[in-house]
């Protein structure tokens, strides 16, 4: 194993080759059983197929990739050294401020684009649908961000609250005829209730135990949904869930007696796109409300307490803070937001089944929060957009989606353990920044 060289200095060509050779060798060993050999079904019995060509190609790719990676890393280090030797690097503070400004500007641009999108793509069903999906994930990400990003409680079963919201709306609407707007707050409250119910007994647990128990909770909810057929429809799920209406106006071709449709009321020709665009704006509004709500909470005592809890729980207790209540509030609010997203999801799909609420979904939402930069609201938008769009752009890569996903989670953690946007903006300043602050200083 001494052949692996992790030199602090730049490597010589021979060292690089040896290093890449070793990595390729490991790749070969790992590749033999999974890539080089595979079993296929031949007439009801398994037979072994060899794919040594593919294995050779993979090993070659690993070799080349490792060479490139080492070379790239060395280059980057040299450039960094050169820059620091040249002197006068911007202070960390200034850089952070610059980054913050860029993020703010990008945020406004993203908002503008989000509002304008259906106007430009008013007849493109695919684009509006995909954008709606992105927004659902953004909203889920913002909800989970409260729990994981701000309060630092690792929740691997977030999808349970999403499911609670979705099933609450589905059951309330199909069984009791509730409308979307009536069911929305009730379902959110139910999800929050589940959050507290789960949270209360387990919040004493240390971080990683908490993670496993929340994962278990998510699975319990799913198993119950699959097996309790009378209640949830079992694996078949619940279908024909009513869609939300626009202040009582349905998005249908024709209205029942005495009612009007959306198209009829506004004197438009009926188009199925109306409903899609309405749903898009609906989730946009829900997401923006979520954002406003969470950003505001962050600057309130409860939000600061969440962050303090993430930083040091024992210090929190020494400051007289009731950490149980603080954790519960984070769990409940995160769960409530997940519940809202679930209601929207059910209303948009018109059909839900336990398939939509697996651990993979929890992992995706968690990845969005972590990749974005824990606690960063804009990071969530960035990560959600990337994670939904990348597989959409390369439809051929659809089956590689989760594979890339897992690899990206590992790589981004190694490259940037703090996430893509890891800058944290203080919730309050004594000396305000920027021109206003400078002017005040000057006036003194």
């Amino acid at each position, binding site marked *: 194993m001494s052949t692996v060289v992790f030199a602090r200095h730049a490597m010589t060509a021979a060292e690089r080759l040896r290093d890449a050779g070793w990595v390729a060798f490991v790749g070969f060993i790992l590749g033999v059983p999974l890539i080089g050999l595979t079993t296929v079904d031949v007439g009801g019995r398994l037979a072994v197929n060899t794919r040594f060509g593919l294995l050779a190609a993979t090993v070659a790719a690993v070799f080349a990739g490792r060479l490139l990676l080492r070379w790239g890393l060395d280059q980057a280090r040299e450039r960094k050294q050169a820059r620091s030797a040249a002197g006068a690097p911007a202070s960390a503070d200034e850089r952070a401020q610059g980054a913050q400004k860029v993020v703010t500007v990008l945020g406004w641009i993203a908002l503008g684009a989000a509002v304008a999108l259906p106007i430009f793509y008013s007849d493109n069903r695919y684009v509006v649908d995909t954008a709606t999906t992105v927004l659902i994930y953004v909203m889920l990400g913002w909800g989970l961000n409260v729990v994981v990003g701000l309060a630092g409680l690792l929740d691997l079963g977030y999808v349970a609250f999403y499911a609670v919201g979705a099933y609450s709306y589905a059951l309330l609407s199909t069984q009791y005829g509730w409308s979307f707007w009536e069911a929305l707050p009730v379902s959110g409250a139910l999800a929050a209730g589940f959050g507290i119910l789960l949270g209360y007994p387990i919040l004493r647990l240390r971080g990683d135990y908490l993670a496993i128990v929340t994962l278990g909770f998510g699975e319990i909810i799913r198993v119950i949904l699959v097996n309790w057929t009378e209640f949830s429809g079992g694996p078949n799920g619940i279908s024909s869930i009513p869609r939300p209406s626009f202040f009582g106006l349905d998005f249908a071709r024709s209205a029942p007696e005495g009612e009007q449709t959306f198209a009829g009321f506004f004197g438009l020709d009926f188009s199925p796109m109306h409903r899609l665009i309405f749903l898009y704006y609906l989730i946009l509004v829900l997401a923006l409300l979520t954002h406003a709500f969470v950003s505001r909470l962050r600057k309130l005592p409860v939000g*600061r307490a969440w*962050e303090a809890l993430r*930083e040091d729980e024992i210090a929190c207790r*020494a400051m*007289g*803070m009731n950490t149980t209540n603080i954790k519960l509030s984070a769990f409940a609010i995160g769960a409530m937001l997940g519940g809202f997203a679930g209601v929207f999801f059910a209303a948009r799909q018109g059909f839900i089944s336990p398939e939509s609420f697996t651990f993979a979904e929890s992992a995706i939402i968690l990845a969005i929060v972590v990749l974005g930069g824990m606690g960063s609201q804009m990071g969530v938008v960035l990560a959600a957009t990337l994670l939904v769009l990348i597989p959409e752009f390369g439809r051929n890569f659809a089956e590689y989606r989760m594979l890339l996903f897992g690899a990206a989670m590992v790589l981004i953690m190694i490259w940037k353990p703090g996430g893509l946007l890891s800058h944290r903006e*203080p919730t309050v300043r*004594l000396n305000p920044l920027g021109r206003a602050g400078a002017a005040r200083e000057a006036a003194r």
Partner: protein
Amino acid sequence: MNAAALNTPATLLSVQKLTMRFGGLVAIDDLSLDVPAASITGIIGPNGAGKTTLFNCLTGFYKPTTGSLRLAHPQHGEMRLEALPSHRVARDAQVVRTFQNIRLFPKMTVLENLIVAQHNVLQRASKFSIAGLLGLPGYRQAEQEAIERAATWLKRLRLEHLADHAAGALPYGIQRRIEIARALCVDPVLLCLDEPAAGLNPRESAELNALLLYLCRELGIAILLIEHDMSVVMNVSDHIGVISYGRKIAEGTPEQVRNDPEVVKAYLGEDDDEDAQDTAVTTGGATA
């Protein structure tokens, strides 16, 4: 504080027959100690004597095996600290501590650290966050007051210029000061400082002395002080308790403690005298 009160100090905290066992290990053994109001009480003792364990029992982090901790709270009357969970010790009994290995909220700014310390006041003002979410004037005023209070302490500890810096990125000595400032924002009746001078240079130690005296003499905050730096303990303490192997072996004024044969024995051992604490005790005595 008038002179009469100082002469006959009322007892603020009374530790009685405190014992703390971890499995077979007896960390504190039948310890009794009185902490007078509006005074500085030093706790010294060799490493592993049980000083920090005493703090942990006092502030609700450990539940004592037996014994009682009675606090004569100026507003709420007698309180039994051993029955309270840690957050209520700080919130209701107003017994606030710092930590031997500094525990700030590292990614939050210094100002935020101090505002988090006022969580309970602000949380009440925010009325379950509803007043806060709506930005009602009552809450806004409370927040403004919290900021001003924090700013006052920052100014007092000469940390004002660092208010908007992330606390975790600052030098060690400054972090110690921030931790004290943060504890003061909780509005303590009794302030428990766990080795506040550890890692400070002589000038910083001298500043610490001045601060402790100010807090006690001017503001009437009682201070319980664990410290190895004898130049701090001997100079500021009104009263010193010495602990060794979980037992109190001596108690009295700095002068009495310094000359107590038991104390010398605890620090130096029976026979050998190569311990570094030796120099600490004698130099402390010389400067006192």
